[in-house]
């Protein structure tokens, strides 16, 4: 190995310390994008983290289509038409929790302390992380849709419908992630972030119209499903992908996104500056 202990170069060191005036303050966009770049580098160096993005949807699609499809919709191919957009939403919403886990890991390792002492627009590290996550969400979406197409899913909304559906889902997930940035800042460990996220996400993801038509559910459960923001995202994405007009549901999805962000972005920023 030649790369171990090279000595510190005294003149060079003096030269780097003597450099001119400090550069002008970076804009919020520059810093956010730089932190987004960091998230992409992490995916490149630790590609294992994409297992969750890929494995979970495969299992869901195969399990629900072939195990329950016949019983729920009469045939597996018909059920796939119904369930695939729902699984797309469920997959992406489920992986939003990794935002919080990654953030919590950063805190434990001390990277966070450095970032918080930088003279930059405060939310940029978080916004950057969320932008990097958007890339993971896109990968997951492409993966689920491709898998669906291979198994026989045919979106009546065509390419435009699919792209519009994914775009709505991205916006919703970006907003939804702010819940996990908040949890990630408050929780003691990455495991507890995981635990809390699962506790919240599991009921929300399953008590929704992802797998079955809610009209078969008891009234009280239907009420819950109708309030659940994930339900509206499912209706909107499913509608767009099947070419139905679902303007109302898209509007509700955006309203839910705005409400979630209005609550959790300020909570996150407060926890971010108060941390310790």
């Amino acid at each position, binding site marked *: 190995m030649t790369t171990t202990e090279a*000595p510190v170069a005294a003149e060079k060191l*003096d030269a780097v310390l003597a450099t001119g005036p400090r550069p002008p303050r970076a804009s919020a966009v520059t810093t956010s994008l730089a932190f987004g770049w*960091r998230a992409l580098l992490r995916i490149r160096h630790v590609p294992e983290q994409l297992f969750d993005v890929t494995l979970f949807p495969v299992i869901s699609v195969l399990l629900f289509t072939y195990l329950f499809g016949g019983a729920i919709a009469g045939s597996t191919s018909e059920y796939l038409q119904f369930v695939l957009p729902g699984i797309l939403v469920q997959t992406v919403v489920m992986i939003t929790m990794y935002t919080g886990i990654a953030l919590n890991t950063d805190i434990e390792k*001390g990277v966070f302390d*450095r970032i918080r002492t*930088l*003279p*930059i627009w405060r939310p940029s590290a978080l916004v950057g992380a969320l932008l990097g996550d958007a890339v993971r969400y896109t990968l997951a979406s492409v993966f689920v849709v491709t898998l669906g197409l291979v198994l026989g899913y045919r979106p009546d909304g065509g390419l435009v419908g699919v792209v519009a559906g994914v775009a709505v889902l991205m916006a919703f997930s970006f907003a939804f992630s702010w819940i996990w940035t908040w949890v990630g800042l408050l929780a003691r460990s990455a495991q507890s972030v995981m635990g809390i996220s699962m506790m919240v996400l599991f009921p929300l993801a399953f008590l929704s119209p992802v797998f079955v038509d809610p009209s078969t559910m008891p009234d009280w459960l239907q009420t819950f499903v109708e309030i659940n923001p994930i339900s509206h995202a499912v209706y909107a994405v499913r509608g767009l992908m099947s070419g139905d007009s679902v303007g109302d549901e898209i509007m509700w999805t955006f309203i839910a996104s705005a409400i979630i962000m209005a609550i959790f972005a300020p909570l996150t920023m407060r926890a971010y500056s108060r941390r310790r």
Partner: protein
Amino acid sequence: MTGIAIETHELVKQFGDKRAVDGIDLVVPEGGVYGFLGPNGAGKTTTIQILATLMRPDGGTASVFGHDVVREADEVRSMVSLTGQYSSVDEDLTGRENLQLLGRVLGYSRADARTRCDDLLEAFGLTDAATKQVKRYSGGMRRRLDIAASIVVTPRLLFLDEPTTGLDPRSRKQVWDIVRALTARGTTVLLTTQYLDEADQLAERIAVIDTGRIIAEGTSSALKSSVGSGALHVHLIDPGDRPRAIDILTRAFGDEVFPGSDPADVTGRVDDRSKVPAALATLAADGVELAGFSYGQPTLDEVFLALTGHTAEETLEAGDSTQNDPEGAVA
């Protein structure tokens, strides 16, 4: 015309019912190295975190170059850098990527960030490791990268929190060289350490901190003279001889002789080094056989004993539960 880099008044930080920082008054002049000496859990890190705007004080005030750390946090951040006790770079990224990222967020253009980063890597002897993930670095390399990351833009004030803890002697020496180069270029360094010799080597002034309070402050020579010029450590072959050894050394040096943590160890504070040979001769004449002995600077333990009447380990035990878990207040 030296200004004031740091000034605190009655600074307090509370974790639960434990005061980690308990009324610290501090004036650190601009330029040079100011040493913050104390055992684990004494409140060094907490104080630094308040000064670096990572934590809000529960009481008192603190300012850096005249800017309040709470009300003018952003101004403070543009003048300081922090190299924390734990690695503060991203271990999954390479050394180059870490520095480039910081260069970008600190306002360098893409090209300038690259140049700056290459210069830093070269100056810190990390060019060959530039494209390796930081988790594959040795402790010394990691520490150097940590410090390089703190001077992507040369700060006016650099906080170094125990920069050499856990490093081998050679890496330690390298870190010292870096600190000296920094101060030669006008950066003020606030350095925390558990080692008296490190503070002695680098710092013009030293504050000794214990259980959240400053118990002594001054130049390193003033501090040492308050402790005695040195200490004699003897390691006995037979621990059973210890009472006799303590007895002999007490007669030779006075009251400040105490048993070490090893049952075969005795340490005596020595004000007049010319008494050392005679004391050793007396031990030999009385048949107290030594496995080894050393005469040297007082250790932190001895400084502590002299200043507080208890050893650093006792402080550690008393303060450990909350100090090492500053997140304790969070659910």
